[in-house]
């Protein structure tokens, strides 16, 4: 008896339920309809903003971030990797490279680089800056030279891969030096710069003399200087062909640019 009364006293929840359902459906339809209308009837305005301002995104490479003097990994995995890494070589090789004829010297580096590759740059950087330009401290057998030209000091240093390229073909190094220096347009550097750190650029010279694989190995911190250095290399169509009695297929060059405003 009691249970049936409950049913009799069915309140007006059916009516309320119907209202609730209707309102829910109405709201849903309204949302869908609004979305359909507001977005152009076929979704063509999806994501259209209400006139918000766009943010310009600039390439990270154009932002003058402070230079990170860490060696880049995109130079070939040879034993000589710029200042701090090339330091060990002259000490190790020079004493033995001299008396041996050039042919043998080329075979020398094969066992050696495993040792140096393992060393994660043990040498402090400040030693490198005054050792490399002066030829790595080896005995004066190759045509090492020191020059003092205006504000810049420097010298030839020939290190690398059992490489006696520099000592055998000093005339070729001189031509490379002259050609790059000729093609470097200093006015491309931002005129507000007085003087800057060196920028090191590496590139390879193929047998035909064509320069390839131009990379900035160590930035100077001044983007316009780095770019002017790379453009100097790009301006060069070709160097002279590699010496005909040189047996390598190409030679790698690490070239530094010193910028100092002269007025």
């Amino acid at each position: 008896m009691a249970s049936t009364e409950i049913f009799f006293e069915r309140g007006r929840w059916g009516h309320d339920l119907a209202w609730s359902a209707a309102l829910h459906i109405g709201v849903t339809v309204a949302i869908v309809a609004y979305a359909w209308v507001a977005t152009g009837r076929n979704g063509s305005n999806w994501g259209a903003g209400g006139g918000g301002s766009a943010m310009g995104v600039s390439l990270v490479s154009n932002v003058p971030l402070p230079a990170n003097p860490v060696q880049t990994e995109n130079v070939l995995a040879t034993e000589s990797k710029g200042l701090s890494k090339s330091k060990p070589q002259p000490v190790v090789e020079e004493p033995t490279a001299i008396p041996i004829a050039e042919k043998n010297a080329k075979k020398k580096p094969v066992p050696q680089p495993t040792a140096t590759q393992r060393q994660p740059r043990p040498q402090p950087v400040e030693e490198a800056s005054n050792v490399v330009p002066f030829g790595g401290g080896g005995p004066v057998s190759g045509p090492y030279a020191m020059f003092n030209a205006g504000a810049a000091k420097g010298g030839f240093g020939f290190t690398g891969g059992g490489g006696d390229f520099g000592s055998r073909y000093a005339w070729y190094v001189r031509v490379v030096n002259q050609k790059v220096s000729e093609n470097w347009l200093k006015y491309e550097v931002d005129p507000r710069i007085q003087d800057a750190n060196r920028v090191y650029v590496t590139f390879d010279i193929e047998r035909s003399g064509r320069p390839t694989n131009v990379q900035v190995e160590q930035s100077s911190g001044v983007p316009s200087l780095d770019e002017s250095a790379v453009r100097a290399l790009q301006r060069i169509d070709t160097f002279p062909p590699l010496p005909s009695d040189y047996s390598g297929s190409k030679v790698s060059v690490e070239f530094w640019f010193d910028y100092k405003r002269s007025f």
Partner: protein
Amino acid sequence: MVKQHFMKRISNLLLPLVLLASASAQDWIKTGTGLGVEKVRIAVPDFKASNSDPRNADLLKTFNDTLWNDLDNAGIFEMVSKSFYPLGPVGAPGDVKFESWNAPPPNAAMLVFGNLAAAGNNINVQGWLYDVKNIASPQVLGKQYTDAATTQAAGMIAHKFADEIILRLGGGVNGIAETQIYYVSARGGHKEIWAMDYDGANQHAVTTLGTISLSPHISPDGSRLAFSSFTGAGWEIRMYSFDLNRLVSFTKIGGTNLSPAWSPDGTHLAFSSSRSGDPEIYVVDQSGANLHRITSSKGPDVSPTWNRKTGSQIAWVSGRTGLPQVYTMGSDGTNVQQYTDQGYAVSPAWSPNGQFLVFSWMRHYGAGAPGAQDIYIMDVVSKQWVQLTHDGGRNDFPSWSPDGRHIVFQSTRSGSTQVWEMLADGSNQKQLTNSGNNSEPDWSWK
């Protein structure tokens, strides 16, 4: 455990790779700017005769003079004066005493030496280029040549050897010792097209048309010469073939057609034509087809020259603002830029590396102005210019050598119009022609 094993595996894989990479390690050169690179000091003692054939004396004289002049003219060497050379002839590698060459007085960096011998109908020349500062391995070049036993062949061998030396020591750019200059000469009564070696030797006529022929321009491969000639009905572009040694036909355009210029790939010619009334720049295929106009402004548009590096720009002279000024545009006529804005500027020529324009300019033009006409060079990017000639006379029609280091031009400073040559910085100006009136020189592309 697994991790250790894994690391071991990785390092086992990497180790041979590392070894492999270093086994093919190439040599490194480290050098930089500011190292005070000056011109190479080169010593060129006379070549020796290696047998006692009586013809050797003449052949040697021609050979030695030609070799010395070619290396001197290259603009990249400092020639060590012969009065500083050690005594004793140098004819073979065994004769070279390094200490006497690389120390003062000669203080040379490079030594060129060799020997020459006439035998039968031929001459044999052996030549070496030595780096005398590198006693351990001095040889840079060692060459042997054989040719007919004539002075002309001896000269050609000297040109070839000099070009090899310049290629090695001059930064990979070919020497110009075997290039030709084409120009207009009136010495036969009519203005005809003539040709000569780059140093003024071997001057000879190319055309004998008996009319007025102007503005010779040789094609990049050297096989054809385009020029403008008066045909009785007007001025037309004519084509001379060096393969066939005669004129070949070219389309008739109508009007006054002048100064044909070759695109660096040899496929197009640009020239000025007044067929529509006012001289405008037209471009046509090298066969004469596809004639189309690329300028259309009031005032004369003449003297086009292509960007020799890219072939996508043309510099020319336009009178659209009044007096003639130098402009550049894309080779389709778009993107016109003005390069001079004063005086009277004519005859632009684009350098082989695409960086410079050289032209003839009267910066002060008009009544009461000094009116000197000189050759100027202008950097295409920065528009900075430098005056190259200062010695009076009217200097006009400059043309670049293919190595980008020399400029040939015409000048009236000697009293008559002659062809002159200088280095691209304005130094070393020398006269190449002497007889008659010679003008409008054009240097070959190789």
